[in-house]
């Protein structure tokens, strides 16, 4: 196996107690001693239900939040020790696609502005001129199955699936190596979901991307990921190759999740 691109080492996150009008709220431990290594070029599935801490983990990887304990390393560099300039440079290399394609695009920006924004922000690294940026945006759009004719349109003119493609194009604009996919298909219809999943597969093969795929949909995770980690209430419950976990889950939680997964086939059972 290739070297790890992302290492999460003993990460914990506690949200402090807050004082309210009627006393103090309890401390919330969102993550407890989580250790995960993601290797270059793989699709790593992170499965957890609501309240499992997967959102906190994503935000920590993006350094939008700092863990209370533990380290997060990207290519061996500790995120917490990076200078602001290095951190900004890192942001070009780690990108995210969010769950809700309706909320994650600024309604007042044209598709051109949305897709070129990362290139503008990372002008110092990418050094693209205005026309080069537009050309690159058009190129990215065709990469995700849209076209240059969509450049001057606004988000509200697109369907959910198309918007998610725009989000993917934006995430790819700064030339990242690691893509966090935060339930990117759960707001989409199955027919569209299948297309977006295929697009993700294709992009990974073509660009050599590493994916961290966060989802509660086990069927999608099984389809896309080669390794999976299950988190429950902030703790890592099980981790391993996708097939191994789906065929022979070790933990009770994994067995329960897999059992609860609705499958579109007829179960011949004695009721």
């Amino acid at each position: 196996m290739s070297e790890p691109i992302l290492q999460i080492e003993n990460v914990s996150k506690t949200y402090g107690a807050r004082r309210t009008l009627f006393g103090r709220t309890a401390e919330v431990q969102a993550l407890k001693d989580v250790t995960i290594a993601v290797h270059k070029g793989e699709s790593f599935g992170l499965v957890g239900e609501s309240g499992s801490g997967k959102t906190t983990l994503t935000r920590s990887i993006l350094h939008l939040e700092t863990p209370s304990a533990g380290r997060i390393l990207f290519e061996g560099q500790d995120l917490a020790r990076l200078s602001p300039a290095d951190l900004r440079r890192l942001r070009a290399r780690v990108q995210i696609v969010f769950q809700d394609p309706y909320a994650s695009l600024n309604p007042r920006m044209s598709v051109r502005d949305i897709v070129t924004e990362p290139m503008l922000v990372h002008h110092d690294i990418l050094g693209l001129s205005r026309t080069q940026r537009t050309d690159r945006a058009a190129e990215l759009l065709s990469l995700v199955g849209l076209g240059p004719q969509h450049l001057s349109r606004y988000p509200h003119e697109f369907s959910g699936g198309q918007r998610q493609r725009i989000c993917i194009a934006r995430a790819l604009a700064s030339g990242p190596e690691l893509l966090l996919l935060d339930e990117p298909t759960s707001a989409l219809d199955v027919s569209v979901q299948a297309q977006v999943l295929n697009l993700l597969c294709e992009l990974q093969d073509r660009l050599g991307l590493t994916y961290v795929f966060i989802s509660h949909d086990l069927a999608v995770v099984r389809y896309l990921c080669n390794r999976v980690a299950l988190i429950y209430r902030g703790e890592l419950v099980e981790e391993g190759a996708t097939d191994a976990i789906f065929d022979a889950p070790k933990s009770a939680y994994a067995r329960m999740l897999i059992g609860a997964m609705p499958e579109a086939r007829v179960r011949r059972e004695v009721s």
Partner: protein
Amino acid sequence: MTETVQTPQTEPARQGNDRMRRAFFRFRQSTLSMVGAGMVAVVLFFTVFGTMLAPYPDHVAGGVETAARFQPPSAGHPFGTNELGQDVLSLVMAGTTVSVLAGFGVVLIGSVIGTLVGSVAGFVGGWADEVLMRLTDLTLTIPSLILAMAIAAALGPGFANMVIAISLSWWPGYARLVRGEVLAAREEVYVTAARAIGANPARILFRHILPNVVSPIIVKMSLDMGFAILTVAGLGFIGIGVRPPTPEWGTLLSLSRSYMPDYWWTAMAPGMAMFLAVFGFNLLGDGLRDILDPKARR
């Protein structure tokens, strides 16, 4: 991979206007909004052309005609004449310019200061928020008319001073509105996306947050226009606004007060003009809120 992304059939030229046309369609659904827009259109028309179109331009400039004092409404003077024999219609038409421009100036200055204060408070948060919002609360406690009178007394009466005076008590409403909107917009997913890209705070504020809080500001400006015109007229009425002979609705109304009720027409025209302007801007504001901010619809 089977890829057929549907392209809307409309030609590109129509695309840009599509949003506007949709908004206009929704606006038209409401009769009251259309009436408001019509009234505002009339008021704005006289703001620009009122002085030019006045039937007795020399009266507007201060000319008097003592022979024709207090003539009741007639074909020659649809709203009669005043104590100096001036045509009331001409004065009111010309007065539109001062009243509406002053109102607009107040709203504009107030919203700019308020947006600045509110967006910094909401975006930066922490102590900046505390300091700015307490300052806002403090300003809110001072009655606007009294503050305006004090400033007029200190700086002397006049158009510019009046506008500045009212604006200084006008911005807190905008500051509070904008702060709330910025706080909400800051949590939007696209703002998080911009942060994840590495965009700096200025870019996030000016590119992602402020453009998305413009709608409620515009709605408030439209709703406020009426009140601002009233306040301007109020200052004119108590004699610290624009000085005669420059025609202004509040001043006109104030002068005619002594001749009520015998020469009622002298008060009628400026009063009606104010009513029309205030009512029109309010209806328009309500209509704009419906199309720009559907969440606030009742």
